[in-house]
């Protein structure tokens, strides 16, 4: 189980994540939602160990991740929000490098990489540099790199970004399959419909604070709202969306 206890991240002049506590359990898919700038990616980076917390504690299977960060990283797979990759390497070279960095045995890693490339339809382009890849292809490389070592904890930050419909459907099923096989899955997305279909529960973040943490079913019942989009709008969207749209159209003289 992944557990965040009173996690806070302060930047000069602002608090990006404010006293956040929630947990993500094995076999569950936890959706992590929030508007832009709400602190989702900052939380993800703290969970991956890329960013240090200002205060609080993150535990995986009851052990603070900072106690043995290396052991924790061996069990964690991460897809970042932005597809930053070494573009001068080919997809195959990049994944091979990731396998080597993770210390995976060469032969099984090569088999796994080839399999992932084939299943993600990248095999034909495996020798092309990543600079030639489309956004969706880069996302597939990131997904492959995150899953290569069969992690126990899977952190996905906007994993559907840039994927074509077919691959998005595959990823949606994959997330469910991995959770069913006992993985802890935490993913953030702006695609509320997907989150609603995939997640067992959601954590909604607004201005760095948690405003909801429950199963979607219970939230629907408690708030008497039919969809996750309505729940999200009520909790995390302060603006009068229709009014703003009208104002913008008026402003540009449309």
């Amino acid at each position: 189980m992944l557990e965040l206890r009173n996690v806070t991240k302060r930047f000069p002049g602002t608090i990006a994540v404010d006293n956040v506590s929630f947990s993500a359990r094995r076999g569950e898919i936890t959706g992590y939602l929030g508007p832009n700038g709400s602190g989702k990616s900052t939380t993800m980076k703290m969970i991956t160990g890329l960013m240090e917390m200002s205060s609080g504690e993150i535990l995986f299977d009851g052990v603070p991740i900072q106690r043995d960060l290396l052991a924790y990283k061996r069990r964690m797979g991460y897809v970042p929000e932005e597809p930053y990759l070494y573009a001068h390497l080919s997809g195959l070279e990049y994944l091979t490098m990731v396998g080597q960095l993770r210390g995976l045995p060469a032969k099984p890693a090569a088999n796994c990489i080839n399999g992932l490339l084939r299943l993600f339809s990248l095999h034909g382009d495996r020798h092309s540099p990543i600079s030639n890849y489309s956004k969706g292809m880069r996302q597939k490389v990131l997904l492959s790199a995150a899953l290569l070592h069969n992690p126990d904890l899977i952190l996905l930050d906007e994993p559907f970004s840039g994927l074509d419909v077919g691959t998005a459907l595959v990823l949606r099923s994959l997330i469910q399959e991995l959770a069913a096989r006992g993985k802890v899955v935490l993913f953030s997305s702006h695609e509320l419909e997907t989150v609603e279909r995939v997640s067992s529960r959601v954590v909604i973040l607004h201005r760095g604070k948690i405003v909801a943490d429950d199963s979607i079913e219970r939230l629907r019942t408690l708030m008497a709202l039919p969809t996750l989009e309505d729940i999200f709008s009520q909790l995390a969207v302060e603006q009068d969306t229709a009014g703003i749209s009208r104002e913008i159209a008026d402003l540009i003289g449309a």
Partner: protein
Amino acid sequence: MNDLQFRVLYREFLFRMVDLELLSPQGDITKLLGQFAAILIWISSGLFLGAIFFDARRIPPNKLMTVLWSQEHFLIATTMLVVGLFAVLSWESTFLNRRDVMVLAPLPIRTRTMFLAKVASVATALSLTVASLHTLAGVAWPVLVFSPANSGVLGMIRSLAAYWVTMLAAGAFIFCCVLGVQGLAAQLPRRLFLRLSAVLQIAAFCLVVSVYFLQPSLATPQALSAAKNQHALAWLPSYWFLGLFQALNGSMHPAMAPLARRAFAGLIVAVFGAGAAFLLSYFRTLRKIVEEPDIVPGVRGVNWLPRFGNALETAVVQFSIRTLLRSRQHRVILAFYLGIGFALVSLLWKNPGPRQQADIPLIVASVVMMTAWVVGTRVVFAMPLDLRANWMFRVTSVHPAPQYLAAIRRPLFVLSVGPVWLASAAVFLWAWPWRPAVGHLVVLGLWGTILAFVSLHGFHKIPFSCSYLPGKSKVNLMFVAAGGLLQAIGLGISYELRALRDPASYARLVAVLSVAAVFCWWRTVALAKAEESVVLFEEEESPAILGLGLFRDGALPMEPAAAPNPPT
């Protein structure tokens, strides 16, 4: 042309002469540019002191003209060297890059505006380079030394103007030559141009450095008039501009007249040739940048590399090899160091000295190239490639730091010590009897090992993955260290030559080098194994105390605070 667009683009292009991707988040581009300027001003100070202490009265009258010409030629050649290096190093920023085109092309900006802003920024950078190099020397030499005797204040002013016009013209000439070559190459298909660019950059670099060090000394009336030197003079632009300076200064010797004419003609041809080639290629390149990728796809099987130890070591070494082979920017910086080594070796081959033997240049070449290669490779390792992508190294850091630090040492041996040693082995075993050849190769291997471990001391970064912070290296100390290193190499080589003929001396030499190598290895490894050692991805760690960011838009929050919200 829209003036505001021009100004915005001009400023943007000017400050992007240096790749911002290299900089740490705490890095400051103005500080970095200031450091470059400081290096040039530092050189200028040295030249300035030369002018201050120049005493014409101590030079025999019949030699005075030759001394003055040699000094004038030295200053012109140095200007051409510095501008030539600037032109080669700023090769990447001469054209818009892919990001520029993707950002600017959709905006309502005329291509002409972008082109002119680019030309203006390059011209400004070029002028600033020449101005920095001659900040102090550019006043002292023409006013105190070069102005014709008894010419008064007017003579000084004329000499000052002649000096600056000549230096700027010499700089413009060499810059336009490099630009012209680039413009002509850009007529090729873009992929071919990108491949060829790397070769051309290194070739131009070696040419500029070699010409500076190897050109014959012809600054005497006899040498300039001699028929046998006319062919060489026709190919040595620094002498043309010496003629131009003499013409502008009003002190022209008849032997200089054809050189001055050649400088004038050469400048016109270079400026218009480069202008035409650049203009033609510019608009063509803009289209091609969008249509074709920057990195040429690899060929299946060609990119295969062997294993280099365990998986982690293999990953780090293969990443380093691929990055160095595919990144033009890093290759050029390495070529800079190799070019310096090459120039020193060339200088020795050119002037072997009366007491030296035929074997010495070969030994010096191997030792100097080993030194230049190891130092250059270590320097490029510190310069990142796509900093934002280094998150993968952080996320996959599943091994203890000492294992990473052990893996980090390996690429330097694979990419520098190994290749130079193998190439030297081939040459020495072919050219020398096997016994002295093996003897020297042992010494060379130990020297390479010592250098590699010394240069890796405290280097706790995966190559190409840590940010770069300007202002950290102490350039003045680097010059002193380089001078000391060259001196040590000279002494070491003379000792080795003697030792190769005397087994006892040779044993002592090998013993000393072995002890030094083992000590360097032990020190570097001990530091890497220290408990507090970590792999660095930021040159400067985040501060323990964070500022509160109370400065907004450069203004202090002096305005009266807004009325507080009523308590709820």
